[in-house]
């Protein structure tokens, strides 16, 4: 009798990139729903625009590189990039702004470096930074979070769609009427205006511990993140590293000067900290690869986020922190090689 011949091992692999990416997308659903609840339907339009352009960029680049676009699309990584970009953008963002970020992320940061697995930089963050540099004015318009107690104008579904498509508000609305500063912006400008933390935190948009709306997006992002940890899609090293890197200096500074430094909970829930810790920094391709290396990588991102928020020109520093640490990855990987069993301390064969 004849048999087919394969190479050992003969047990089918248990993991799958496409399934990992799908689960990352599932894990973002709760946070996305809360985003829509607090900041309106703009998030969905951004997600659709980002997805369309990420997929288009992927297809075009795979065609140009002479490869099968279906193969690249079937791993869902372009959609993860689109989702992360959508989370990073204000819910009111004109389509061409989103498209610019999506295309830059996919075409330049991903495919010009060789596609999935070879990109040095996190594509979503590279795309976001390009928007930050090219269209800073659009990133300042965050609609006010849904809250009953302050006076603001709420944009309807169609009005939001209109802004996404044209970049202009309906005649009845003005930017000032619909938008509010983000908690991080408010903190930064408040501190610049010599107010104390207590005064700033008393603003209604500061919410209970890290900004109205933002804190709940953060909570549900964390739920998704813990689900990924349980499913072993991500490991604990990077989220814990980001936490340590950000919260340790935040706590120290808060204890030293509670009047001029917001506390650790504000840093944790304000801005994109939790999204970064569980979803952005954990992008395996652009992160360090050994467990020790990942802890260091995470800590580096955390420290940079704190430094940029505290002393930098930008309100939040997630994108720059991630991209800067992406650059440090080869060095981290080289310096954190684990001890190979049977080798001596110098890593040499005895």
């Amino acid at each position, binding site marked *: 009798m004849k*048999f087919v011949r394969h190479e050992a*091992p003969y*047990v089918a692999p248990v993991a799958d990139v496409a399934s990992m990416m799908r689960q990352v997308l599932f894990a973002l659903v709760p946070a996305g729903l809360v985003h829509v609840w607090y900041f309106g339907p703009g998030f969905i339009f951004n997600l659709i625009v980002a997805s369309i352009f990420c997929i288009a960029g992927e297809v075009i680049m795979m065609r140009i590189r002479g490869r099968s676009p279906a193969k690249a699309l079937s791993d869902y990584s372009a959609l993860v990039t689109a989702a992360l970009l959508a989370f990073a953008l204000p819910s009111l963002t004109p389509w061409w702004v989103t498209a610019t970020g999506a295309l830059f992320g996919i075409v330049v940061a991903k495919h010009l470096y060789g596609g999935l697995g070879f990109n040095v930089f996190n594509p979503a963050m590279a795309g976001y930074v390009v928007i930050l540099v090219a269209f800073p004015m659009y990133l300042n318009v965050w609609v006010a979070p849904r809250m009953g107690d302050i006076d603001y104008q709420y944009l309807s579904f169609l009005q939001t769609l209109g802004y996404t498509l044209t970049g202009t508000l309906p005649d009845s609305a003005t930017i000032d009427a619909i938008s509010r500063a983000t908690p991080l912006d408010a903190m930064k400008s408040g501190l610049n205006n010599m107010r104390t933390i207590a005064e700033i935190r008393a603003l209604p948009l500061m919410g209970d511990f890290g900004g109205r709306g933002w804190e709940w997006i953060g909570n549900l992002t964390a739920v998704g993140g813990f689900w990924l940890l349980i499913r072993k899609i991500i490991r604990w090293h990077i989220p814990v590293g980001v936490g340590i890197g950000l919260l340790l200096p935040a706590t120290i500074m808060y204890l030293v000067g509670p009047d001029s430094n917001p506390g650790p909970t504000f840093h944790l829930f304000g801005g994109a900290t939790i999204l970064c810790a569980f979803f952005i920094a954990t992008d395996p391709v652009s992160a360090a690869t050994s467990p020790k290396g990942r802890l260091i990588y995470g800590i580096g991102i955390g420290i940079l986020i704190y430094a940029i928020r505290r002393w930098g020109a930008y309100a939040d520093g997630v994108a720059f922190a991630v991209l800067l640490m992406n650059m440090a990855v080869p060095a981290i990987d080289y310096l954190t090689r*684990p001890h190979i069993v049977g080798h001596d301390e110098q890593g040499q064969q005895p």
Partner: protein
Amino acid sequence: MSAPTYDLGKLHGGLRLDAHKSQSTARPIMDVPVPGQLVLPIGQHVGDPAQPIVGIGEYVLKGQLIAEVHGTLGAPVHASSSGKVVSIEPWPVARRFGEPAPCIVIECDGKDRPVELAEIAPAFDELPPDVLLQKILHGGIVGLGGAVFPTAQKLMQATTCDLDYLLLNGVECEPYISCDDVLMRERAAEVLGGAQILMHALSIDRCYIVVESDKPEALHRLAEVMAELDDERLVLKLVPTIYPSGGEDQLVQLVTNLEVPSAGLPTDIGCLVQNVGTAAAIYDWIHDQEPLISRVTTITGNGVAAPMNVRARIGTTVADVVNFVGGYTEHASQLIMGGPMTGKSVNTDRVPLVKATNCVLIMSETPSPGPEIACIRCGECAAVCPVQLLPQQLFWYACADDEKSLRSYGLTDCIECGCCDLVCPSHIPLTADFRKAKGRIRELADEKARAVRARQRFEARNERLERDKRQREQELARQKKHAKAAGPAAIAEILKRKQQQKEDED
């Protein structure tokens, strides 16, 4: 009796795999009858193939030596039953994935007539250790855990080291395989007897019998026999069920918390590891004078009708054995000699069972996991690697053929356990790639060695030519000096003689 102990070292990574063992352990070991034809490869072990010492047409007896050790490393081969040698020819073998290698083919007469034995074998503890070692050499015994290293030579090497422990490996961590489990259940006395022989031969006074936690019956039986033996040198050790804790170096690390040096041996840190099956084979040879002509093998998988453990003569073909266990099922499309993680995929059931065959796994084809895509550096491979390598980095360097980095990242330390393949979400056949890269590294090393030899030869030649030239010049100078010292008359004499010589030649 001493209770099993858990004070263990740590093993990095590893996997908990579906065991698939109960399907073959439900029945006792069954003896496969002597087949009509036996096929005995002369290269069943690590080292040089044995040299046949029988001719075609010769009648051989069960247990008769038919091929002897040839070269520095090897093991003899014995006839597994009586009959006539009909040919010595290339035959498909498992070692070469079903490609042919030289085999001695015996047509059995069914009488199973044994060679004459010495009346009573001397008790092992009356023999001096070196005589015992010499005796083991003639039993054709090799490591039965799958590595098939000639046992006698392994023991000889061990005598040059300071040994603290004998470790009897009853871990058998690979899925499907259960031959050691049932052997320990049914032949615990022989296994422990083998351990006592080994301890005597090597003057070791501590033996750990290491068994995985998923083998309670074997453990129970071993403990019973140990209570009867009342030998306090024997200690049972229980290890958790994690693949690949049964690898030799991994076992040492688990039990002693010491790392076997890279490119070294367990004996370097005072441990000698022997498979439980090997110990039983040593007992059979020393106590009952039966050389290694049969072994317990697991025949299993959804491709066979009745999975079970059988004791079969070495040289029985897979086809004959499968026939014995009720034939194939409709799922039989893959034949693996060994386990599902490290076994050898073979294309035909004409291959014979050999000393290495701990398992014949016949199953449906492994479902395709989908296409291989680029590595996303998730690092799961590094998390499961028992040697703490970074397979994702090794893969990168293997693609780039970067020999220096491959070495410094420990490619040669890879034990090819296959764990990284299983967890890779990109479905990269890492183990196969590493096997290839290792081959290339070996080739490069050979090439380098050849180049060094060639350069040495070239330099030696140049030196020789130079030396000859110098000698000639010195000789010429000496002659000149001589002539000058003799004066003009002598020179004229020499010239005249030269002239004369020339004319004579013309």
